Every structure is written in C-alpha cells, then in structure tokens.
C-alpha cells in the first residue's frame, strides 16, 4: 500500500543549552513517518521530549540535527498548516473567548459575519456557549484548554498538533471532548498528532501509538491500534482492548522505571 507521509521526521536530534552551561539532549536521532489522515498518539515519560518534537513539527524551533518534511518539503519557519493546541493554552489575554477563536479565520481574511459564524460553531462544540464575551482570566483551566482547542480547529489547519489537550479536564468533559475530536477527525480526515500520558486515551483515539523512550527521546515502539471505529467507551471492556493495553504498558513501564531511576540518580548527584 502506497501512502503519503504528510509529516516526516528524519534523524531529528535536539539539544538544549541549559542555564548552568551544561547541554541537555531532549531528542536523539528520531525518525518517524506520519501518514496523511491518521490519528497518531505520542506517549512517553515526562520530560522525554514530546513537546519539543511537536514544536519542531510546528516550526517553532529547529532541530539541532536532522530535518522535518511537510508534504516532502522541509519546514523552515513557523508553519500555519500545522496548527498547535498548546499545553499551556497560550490564549490572548486581551481577546475574549470569541476573539481568540476568531483569530485564525480573521488571519485568513474571513469577513466579520463569516468568522463569527465559524467561531460560534467551535465554541458550541467545546461546550462554551454563553462564555463568548469572557476574557481568558475569567475562565477555569479546563475552560481555557477548550478555548485553545476551538481556536486551533477554527483556523482549519491540515495537521493538528495537540499537546496534552485534555489534561486539565475532568473525566466526563474529557470523554465528551474525545468523542467530539473523533467526530471531527472522521469528518475532516485531518491528520492529528496527539500527546497524552493516558494509555486509555491513546487507545480510544489513535490509529497508531508511538511510545517514546525516556530522555533522550527516540521512537521505542510503534503499535497499530485497529480497534473498530466508531469507538465508544464500552470498547474498554473488550479482550482486544485489554491485550493492547497490557502490551503498551510493558513498553511504557520500562521507560518510566528508567526515567525514575535517572531522576533519583540526578537528585542524589545534585544533593
């Protein structure tokens, strides 16, 4: 089967210079193909470089080595075709909920009525009707997170880069948002790269699940999740689900232990 990789990381490494002068390798020689239209989940221990990888895909930072291709062309600057849902929200504090969500359409030159209509659609989708006129500081963390999601969707990018977009939501809202996201993915056939810490979330959402190793981040394993779609929470009761979950868990467990081991070592060395 000949499929086109919409995003392709080729031998990507990223090192940071820390304030103390020491270097830190966040990603090392990471290669990954992301297929057009797929829903890909990235799983990995905290600090293994997931956000770093997403930032490279969005063109926010350059890899130290290697390169990233979008539809076969290297990403050189900030790339609006890869829309980011930020882990830390990054909402414009001087804009209301509506102003934030309208931002993408406005940049594309949509007229007032048109962008208002687009914004309303996504505000409704993230269940924030009635809060259009609020400023971000008047919202809870979970509400702000949903505004960020709506803002990215309203901008209609080709690839959605989502950095733990549901981390601040309660279990119920999270489930509703997951279902909405699946619906959008099915309708629009957009490519989604989705970071999560939650194996259940990855199993509900993903076509493929990429487990990253502890720092420096590399692709440890890639699992294909062919649980039938459309998926529903009840799928968690199936034996297939349990099998996949325990398989991912064995991969993740090693890395988590290694990560904890390393932090303990660092703490002992630093103290």
């Amino acid at each position, binding site marked *: 089967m000949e499929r086109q990789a919409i995003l392709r990381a080729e031998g990507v490494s990223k090192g940071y210079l820390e304030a103390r002068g020491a270097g830190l390798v966040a990603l090392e020689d990471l290669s990954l193909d992301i297929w057009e239209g797929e829903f890909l989940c990235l799983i990995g221990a905290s600090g293994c470089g997931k956000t770093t990888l997403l930032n490279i895909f969005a063109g926010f930072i350059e890899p130290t080595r290697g390169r990233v291709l979008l539809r076969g062309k290297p990403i050189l600057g900030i790339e609006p075709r890869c829309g980011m849902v930020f882990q830390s929200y*990054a909402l414009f504090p001087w804009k209301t909920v509506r102003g934030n969500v309208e931002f993408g359409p406005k940049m594309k030159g949509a007229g007032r009525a048109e962008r208002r209509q687009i914004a309303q659609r996504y505000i409704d989708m993230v269940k924030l009707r009635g809060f259009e006129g609020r400023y971000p500081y008047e919202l809870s963390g979970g509400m702000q997170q949903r505004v960020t999601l709506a803002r990215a969707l309203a901008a209609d990018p080709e690839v959605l880069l989502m950095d733990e977009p549901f981390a601040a939501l309660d*279990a119920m809202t999270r489930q509703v948002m997951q279902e909405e996201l699946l619906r959008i993915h099915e309708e629009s056939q957009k490519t989604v790269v989705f970071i999560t810490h939650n194996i259940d979330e990855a199993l509900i959402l993903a076509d493929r699940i990429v487990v990253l190793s502890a720092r420096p981040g590399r692709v440890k394993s890639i699992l294909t999740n062919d649980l039938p779609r459309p998926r529903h929470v009840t799928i968690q009761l199936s034996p297939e689900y349990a099998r996949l979950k325990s398989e991912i868990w064995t991969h993740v467990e090693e890395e988590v232990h290694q990560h904890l081991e390393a932090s303990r070592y660092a703490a002992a060395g630093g103290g």
Partner: protein
Amino acid sequence: MVVKSSGGAQIAALEVAAAPRPWREWLRRRTRLVLGLLSVLAFLGIWNLATARGWISPVFLPSPAAVAAEAGNTLDTGELWRAVLASSERVFAGFFLAAAVAVPLGVLMGVWWPAKAIIDPFVSLLRPLPSITWIPLTILWLGIGEAQKTAIVFMGSWIYILIYTIESTKRVDPLLIRAARNLGATDVALMREVILPGALPGILSGLKVTLAISWSCVITAEMVAAQTGLGAIIWRAKDWGNLPLVLVGMAGISVTVLVADTLAELLERLLIPWERRRPR
C-alpha cells in the same frame, strides 16, 4: 495506574478557594479611608496649634487659616484657575508631543533591533540630563514663550516614555507571538493583534508615571522664566514674601497632579478592559 494525567479536580478546588469575601474587603477599604482622613486632620491640627501658640513664627510657616484665606482670594480673583490652566496646557502639549514621538519609536526599537542599536547611544547620553539643564539652550533657541516650556516638558518626558515602551514591547510573551504566527498572522497582523495590545498595559503605566514627571518639568521651567502658571505664582510669591501664596501654589500643584493622575487611571481602565478586574 502509574501513568495518569492530572485531572480537573485540582482546578475545581482552586476555584472554590478563591471565592471572594466582599464585605470584608469593603470594611477594610472603609477603615483605610477613615485612617487616612484622621491622619490628615491630625496633621492640620498640629500645624494649627504650632502656629497659634507661636512655636513656629509666621515668617517661617503661616497658619493653615492664612493659607486657606489666601487660597480663597486667589480663587476669587481667578488667578489660581488661570495658573492651573496655563501649566496644564504646557504639560499636555509637551507630554502628548513626547508620547507621539516616543511610543512609535519605542515599539519600533522593541521589535527591530537595528533601530534600537542606532538610537540606544543617544538614550544613554540624554537620560542622565535633568530637564532643567535644557533651560539655557531652549531659551536661546525658542525664547521664553510657550514653545520653550513645551520643549522643557518634552525633553524631560520623552526618554522615560521611550524606555517604558521598549521594555513593554520586548516583554510581550513570545509564546503568544508563536501562537499568532501559527494561526497564520502576517507581520502587520502580528503587530496590530498581538504586540500592540500586549505592550499596551506597560506603555500606559509608563505614560502615567511620566505624566507626574512632566508636571515637575513644567514647574521648574515656570520658576525660571514665566509670567503665568503655578511655578510662576510660587516664585513671584517668594519674591514678595507672601508665604501663604507659596503654599497655595504648592497645594495647587499637588491637587492638579492628583486629578490628572485619577483621570489617567480612569482612561487606563477604559483602554485595557482585560486587566480591569484582574487582581493586582
């Protein structure tokens, strides 16, 4: 399970903890007001006692009553109003001119480093000069009319506005700039939608601080060479040995600057609604 993301429970807890207690806040504000009022009254009482009992000779400090009477006189003749008006006009002319030059220049210097590199040396050299040192040159160039007063205010104000503007422009959250670019913003849109609103609170608070500086500039200029204005009143009163009038002039400055400051505060709240209800 070990791998689990942080849930919404923490956030809900925070919201409950932050619930305000309006009546307590109200009581505290009232108490603060009463205490301030009492302290002013006590000061006036001691001042009155000291002059009435002859502890301080009226040659050095007139009684509050004498000052109040002088204030009534100058208000009746309209002299005080004219002085306030004359000084205000000069301040606003110089201040707005300074803002009109320094805010755009500061934004440019904040976003485009070559501009900053070119202008920085002059900023470093001009900043240490008090506005009063510009008096000889400005008189030589502009005479002792309104233009010279405006020039003194301008020279004393523009650098502060510039510095505040550069700082606030550079301190706009880079994450928000990334977000805007990611959503497809062009250079012009980025400036209009992100950099200017992001820098606005800082620029406005810079303008507010500078407004008070502008006032001290105009008073200095008026004391050296002017027929009208609050500074001129004070200086003339000194020559005539009219100490109550000196104090009236000083009080006039305080009240006028306070009023200007309050107006500026109101304007600020109007211009940046997203900061209005944010706890400070």
